[in-house]
C-alpha cells in the first residue's frame, strides 16, 4: 500500500490520465452521468416525499370522517331508507370499544352539505358562513393556527356553553376593517351575539376547514339550534401504528350494530378515510424513492462498467507502452497498480463532479418549486447515501480496474513489445 502515498505514483497516474484526454473525458462522463442521475432522481423523490409530508403536516395522517346517511336494506323490523342520525352516545361507544382510536371529535355543522350557511352581521357588514359546533379536541386532529392574541375553544367554553366564536381569516376580512382587532369584538350569528376569541389562519397544505368557517363550542351550538345529542359527523384519528382500513371497518360495524342496521348495509354510514388515501400517496412517494435508487444505481453501474471497458480497450491500445515500461523495469505489480489506480482515480473524480452537479441541480429545482402549489420541498439526498455511493464507486472502480490490469500483466513484455 506504500505506493498509494508515493507522489511519484500519482504523478505517473496523473500524467497518463491528463495526456489521454479523450479517453479520460469519455470515461468520466459515463460515471458522472450515473451519479448525477442517482442524486437528481433520489433528491427529487425525496423532495416530493418532503412535499407530501409538509402538505399533510397540519392534519392527523391516520384520520377519517364518518357520517350518517340512510339504510339501503330493511332490518330488525325497519324499512329500507330509514334516515340515520349519529348521536353523542356513539362517540362514547366507539371510544370504549375501539382501542386504536386516539382522538374522536364529534362535530355538528350548519352551512355545509346542502344546508344554508349562517347569516352573520357585524355593524354594517354581513356575510354567510359555515358554522361548526366543535369540541376542543378537534385541534388534535386538524391543527388550527390561531393568529396572535386569540385562541381556540377550550373546555371552560364547553362547560359553560359560552357564546364565543373562532372565525376564519376571510370572515375577518369581510366583517372587520383592516386595522381593527377582531378578538373581543361581538358579531351576530343568526340572532345571537357571539364574542370573537380567535381568528384561524388557513393552513398551508391540506386543511379540513376553509378560511370562511366559524367555530363555536358544541354545547353552545346544541342550545342554539336545539339539536340535542345529534352529531353531524365524526372526525376520528387512529394511533400512528393502527391499520386505518381496519379501524374504519370496525367503526362502521359498531355503528351498524348500535343503530340496528343490517351488517351488510353499505349505505347507512358514509366515510372518508384520509389515512388510506394518504398511505397511497406516501406509497407512491416511497415507490418513487425506491425506483430512483434502482435507476440511479443501475446508471452508476453502467458507468463503471463503461470505465472498465474503456480501460480494457486502452490497455489493448497501450500494450506496447506497457511492454516498454516493463522492459525499462516496471514490475507486474507496478503496472497492475497503475491501471487500477487510474480506474479508481477516474471513478472518484467523475463521482465527485457528478455529486456537485447533482447538488446544483437539486438546489435549482428547489428555487423553481419554492412557493408553488406543487407539493415539493427541500429536495435533498442524505449525506450517508452520497458517501455510500462514493464508496461503492471506489470499490467498483477497483474491481472493474482489476480486469484490464490483469490483462495488462498477463502479456509477456516480449510479446507486448512485438505488438504493432
Amino acid at each position, binding site marked *: 500500500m506504500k505506493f498509494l502515498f508515493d507522489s511519484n505514483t500519482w*504523478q505517473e497516474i496523473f500524467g*497518463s490520465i491528463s495526456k489521454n484526454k479523450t479517453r479520460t473525458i469519455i470515461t468520466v462522463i459515463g460515471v458522472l452521468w450515473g451519479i448525477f442521475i442517482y442524486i437528481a432522481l433520489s433528491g427529487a423523490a425525496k423532495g416530493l416525499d418532503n412535499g407530501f409530508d409538509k402538505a399533510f403536516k397540519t392534519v392527523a395522517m391516520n384520520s377519517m370522517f364518518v357520517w350518517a346517511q340512510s339504510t339501503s336494506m330493511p332490518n330488525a323490523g325497519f324499512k329500507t331508507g330509514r334516515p340515520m342520525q349519529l348521536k353523542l352516545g356513539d362517540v362514547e361507544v366507539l371510544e370504549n370499544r375501539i382501542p386504536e382510536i386516539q382522538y374522536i371529535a364529534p362535530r355538528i355543522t350548519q352551512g355545509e352539505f346542502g344546508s344554508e350557511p349562517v347569516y352573520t352581521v357585524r355593524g354594517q357588514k354581513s356575510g354567510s358562513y359555515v358554522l361548526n359546533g366543535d369540541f376542543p379536541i378537534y385541534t388534535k386532529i386538524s391543527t388550527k393556527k390561531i393568529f396572535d392574541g386569540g385562541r381556540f375553544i377550550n373546555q371552560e367554553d364547553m362547560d359553560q356553553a359560552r357564546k364565543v366564536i373562532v372565525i376564519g381569516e376571510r370572515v375577518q376580512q369581510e366583517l372587520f376593517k383592516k386595522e381593527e382587532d377582531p378578538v373581543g369584538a361581538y358579531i351576530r350569528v343568526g340572532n345571537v351575539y357571539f364574542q370573537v376569541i380567535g381568528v384561524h389562519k388557513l393552513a398551508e397544505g391540506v386543511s379540513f376547514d376553509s378560511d370562511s368557517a366559524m367555530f363555536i363550542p358544541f354545547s353552545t351550538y346544541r342550545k342554539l339550534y336545539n339539536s340535542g345529542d345529534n352529531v353531524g359527523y365524526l372526525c376520528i384519528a387512529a394511533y400512528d401504528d393502527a391499520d386505518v382500513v381496519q379501524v374504519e371497518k370496525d367503526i362502521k360495524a359498531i355503528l351498524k350494530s348500535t343503530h340496528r342496521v343490517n351488517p351488510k348495509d353499505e349505505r347507512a354510514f358514509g366515510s372518508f378515510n384520509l389515512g388510506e388515501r394518504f398511505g397511497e400517496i406516501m406509497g407512491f412517494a416511497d415507490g418513487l424513492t425506491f425506483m430512483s435508487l434502482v435507476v440511479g444505481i443501475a446508471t452508476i453501474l453502467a458507468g463503471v462498467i463503461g470505465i472498465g471497458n474503456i480501460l480494457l480497450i486502452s490497455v489493448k491500445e497501450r500494450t506496447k507502452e506497457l*511492454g516498454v515500461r516493463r522492459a*525499462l523495469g516496471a514490475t507486474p505489480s507496478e503496472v497492475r497498480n497503475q491501471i487500477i489506480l487510474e480506474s479508481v482515480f477516474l471513478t472518484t473524480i467523475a463521482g465527485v463532479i457528478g455529486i456537485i452537479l447533482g447538488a446544483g441541480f437539486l438546489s435549482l429545482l428547489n428555487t423553481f418549486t419554492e412557493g408553488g402549489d406543487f407539493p415539493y420541498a427541500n429536495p435533498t439526498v442524505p449525506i450517508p447515501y452520497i458517501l455510500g455511493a462514493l464508496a461503492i464507486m471506489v470499490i467498483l472502480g477497483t474491481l472493474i480496474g482489476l480486469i484490464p490490469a490483469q490483462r495488462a500483466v498477463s502479456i509477456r513484455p516480449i510479446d507486448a513489445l512485438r505488438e504493432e
Partner: protein
Amino acid sequence: MIEIKDLHKSYKMGSNSLHVLKGINFSVEEGELVAIMGSSGSGKSTLLNILGMLDELDEGSYVLDGVPIKNLNETKAANYRNKFLGFVFQSFNLINYKSAMENVALPLYYQKVGRKERQEKALKYLEQVGLKEWATHLPNELSGGQKQRVAIARAMAAEPKVLLADEPTGALDSKTSYEVMDLIQKINDQGNTILIVTHEPDIADMCKRIVHLKDGVIIEDKKVEQVRAAQYV
C-alpha cells in the same frame, strides 16, 4: 560481464518446435562494443532478448556481472532489467504522450528516484545526446534520428551495466545511422558495454568485435579495427 555457455532456445508452435539457438558459447568483457550479425531469421533478436531477460533460455547458463540468470519470475526479471540493462529498439518505442524528458526519466521512476533528481538526470542525458533544447517536445515532433537519440538517452539514464540495441539504425537513413553510431561509440568510449544487433556490415564495422550467427550457432567471432563514425557526420 556476460557469460553464456551452451545456450539453446526453441520456439514451440503447436506440435512443431523451431530450434533457433543451438548451443551458443559467448562472453563479453566490460567496455566492449559487440556487433551481432547474421541474416534475417538467424536468431539475433532471440539471443539479445534472452540477454535482456525478456525471454528465457531452454538450456545452458547465463551469468550477468557475476549474477546467474535463471528461473526468474517477472518481478525479479523487471528489477534486474531496471538495474543492469538498457534497451534500444529499432522502432524507438518512445511513449508518445510523454515529452522527451519524461521518456528519458521513466526508467528512473521505476528505480524510485525522486522527481527532481529524475528531471536533472534526464536533462543531463538529453544534453549528452545533443537534444537538451528538445526536452519538452513530444516524440512525434522529433525526427527518426532524434527519436533514437532520445531512446539511447533513456537507456543510458538508468546507468545500466550493458546496453542492448536491436537494429538501432534499422529504421534510419545512412547519414542518420552514422550519427547514432557516433553517439554509441562515444558512450562506449566512456567505458560502457554495448551489444548491437545489425545486419548492415558498415554498422558492424563501427564496433570493436563482430559475432556472426548462422543457423543458430556462432560461425565467426572476431575483433575488428573500429571505424569511427564521426568522420561521416
